[in-house]
């Protein structure tokens, strides 16, 4: 299987202070990877670097076979990487109605007027928001807003979907419902997903693989099945597989 995402020696710094890396990571196409770890460990920074929103200091990022970053130089602009991102708390544009949010993305992608309207409707149906096209973000519930943010992330037809705490603000029932939608879309569209969360409960059941991050590095990498087993076992250190030095190349 080809790798949808390949990261080698990735480092991100703020000034001279390293905040991420070095990161070595290979994610095969169609894999759902859960990225867990405490707040401030670099999970979101890694997502932003993949999306091209944070400038790496060193290393390479290859997305779907295309070199996106090399040695601290941005090769592909964020919009050219074929990634969609669901931001923490949605980051929906507050002044745009639901359908307009999607049409805006489609127009940016050069989709024609009629096709935009049709595709926006399809996307709303896809995330079970049909009939919500004229609603503004302020009038949506937390779950509805996250679904709309998901539709917006999917509007650019991404191969890789980056999810930054997508279930964070939701209650248990809504989390389960959105997670089920995510899995359905992942399987239908063949998406590769990098899913950041500080609370893996529930999400680990649907992911294929779980990575644990600490202090800007990946310190554990196990299949999702093992993650649950290790988590239950008390006193075993480290909880996830191996130390950073033992990461597979």
């Amino acid at each position, binding site marked *: 299987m080809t790798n949808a995402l390949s990261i080698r020696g990735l480092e991100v710094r703020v000034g001279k202070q390293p905040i991420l890396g070095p990161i070595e990571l290979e994610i095969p196409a169609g894999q759902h990877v859960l990225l867990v770890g405490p707040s401030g460990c670099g999970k979101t920074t890694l997502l*932003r670097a993949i999306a091209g*929103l944070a400038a790496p200091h060193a290393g390479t990022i290859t997305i779907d076979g295309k070199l996106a970053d090399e040695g601290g130089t941005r090769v592909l602009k964020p919009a050219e990487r074929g990634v969609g*991102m669901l*931001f923490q708390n949605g*980051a929906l*544009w507050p*002044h745009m109605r639901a359908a307009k949010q999607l049409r*805006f993305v489609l127009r940016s992608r050069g989709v024609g007027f009629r096709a935009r309207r049709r595709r926006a409707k399809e996307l709303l149906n896809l995330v079970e928001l049909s009939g919500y096209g004229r609603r503004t973000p302020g009038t949506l519930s937390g779950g509805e807003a996250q679904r709309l943010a998901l539709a*917006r992330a999917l509007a650019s037809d991404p191969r890789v979907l980056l999810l930054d705490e997508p279930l964070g603000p939701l209650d248990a029932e809504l989390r389960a419902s959105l997670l089920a939608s995510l899995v359905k879309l992942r399987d239908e569209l063949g998406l590769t997903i990098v899913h950041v969360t500080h609370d893996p409960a529930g999400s680990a059941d649907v992911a294929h693989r779980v990575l644990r991050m600490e202090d800007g590095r990946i310190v554990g990498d196990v299949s999702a099945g093992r993650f649950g087993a290790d988590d239950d076992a008390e006193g075993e250190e480290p909880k996830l597989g191996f130390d950073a030095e033992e990461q597979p190349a």
Partner: protein
Amino acid sequence: MNRALRITAGLAFALLCLAPILIMLTRVGVSDLENLGSERTLGLLGRTLRLGLHSTLIAVLIGAPFGFLLARTDVPGASLMRPLGIVPLVLPPLFLAITWTAVFELRGPWATALVLGVNTFPLVALFTAKAAARIDARREEAALLVGGLGTALRMELPLLLPGILTGAALAFAFAVNDWSVPDYISSVGPKFNVYADEIFANWQLEANTGKAVVTALPLVLVTLAALLPALSLRRRGALATLDGDFRRPAPLRLGVWRWPAFAFCAAVVLFAVCGPIARLAFEAGGGTRGFTTTAFREAMATTLEFEREFLANSLIWSAVAATIAVPLALVIAHAIERLRGGRWLEPIVLLPIAVPAILFGIGTINLWNHDATAEIYDGNAMILLLYLGRFLAFPILVLSGAVAALDPRLEEAAELAGAGPLRRLRAIVAPPLRPSLVGGWVLVFVFAMRELDAAVLVPAANHTVIFKAYNRIHFARDDSVAALCLLILFFLVLPGLLWSLFAREKLEVLP
């Protein structure tokens, strides 16, 4: 954002706002520096600073309680008095000086401080109200539970203080740089000079530009010293107590203090707004010679007929200046907030506000009064350049604050979607900032309409209605002066009035 766009906006700011200031510095010779320590200069500086401090004290004493009471308490009539309380800031301070000296026969430096204090108190009130509205309901409820209203107010004062100080710093900057009020009050009573007079005298009477610049330097430094900490307070978020799950507080119940509080607020509105406007209307209708509505209508109609050209000139150029300033300001404000190190540019933005208007006018003359630019200097474009140079800083400060409050992820999401820099600015950044964009437009429009201190020096700007009013004050009948002032006032208040009537969002005019 597009680099070319940023560079163009930066160059425009440099040419319009900084070049008139920098060109003045090149005229300073070593011998001019001797003027800095002269007894006369130091005496005038001391008098101007005292005037500034006294007027700021008055602005704080009126503005802080006025802003807090109308923003956070159950004082009756708050919704009506809130917009009326902004009107003194819109009024040219000269108009306040005319009406107050006519009614109370106020004379001398204290009268000047009072007029400037009343003119600038809305700045303190607006910042206080903004800080007060951002106190979380739960913090207030906790204080109310512990010890009632007094405890709640003691808890809130430190949270209000940065807002009060920021408003006070701006009020001080306005007061020490004003020239029209001391000039007018001196002309109707005992003569006293302020610093702006000295700058003007050094330039015009002694034809010594370098000396004028050196004279102005201490005042510029003092103004910057007042404004920079205010800017820093805003940067550190000291003006905001908002956090993630903010709960808007309910109005505080004043109990037996409700009606005394109403009396205070109503008195402020009466003396600072209704009184001056009523006096102007009274004068326009005949004044002490006998007020009649026929005379009032005649005075208004005659004034409109005679001054139509000047009024149109002012309205058009103020509106054009505001319309050009706002997109320019948005690009610069966005660069300040989003570029790495961009915030270091903000103190530079303050320079045109800190430099006395008279000096800015002299700088503009020095910059543009050459053979090569004679066409610009003599034409109406000069008015535009002067207005933009003097007031572009205001929408930049308003919009940089608004951009700072806008979640950068909104732009990142659009960038990921493939929207280019201009489209992101137009479709993602600008719409949520609409109240600030319109607020910035209104600020430039109002300040340009009432601009006199620098315009009085630049020949092209002499064809404006405020200059005409200034001339009439000295040479024309009271009824025609009052009618012209009322006309100007109507157009000054009009944009804000229209917005509040037809828009659902609150106008944002604070940095």
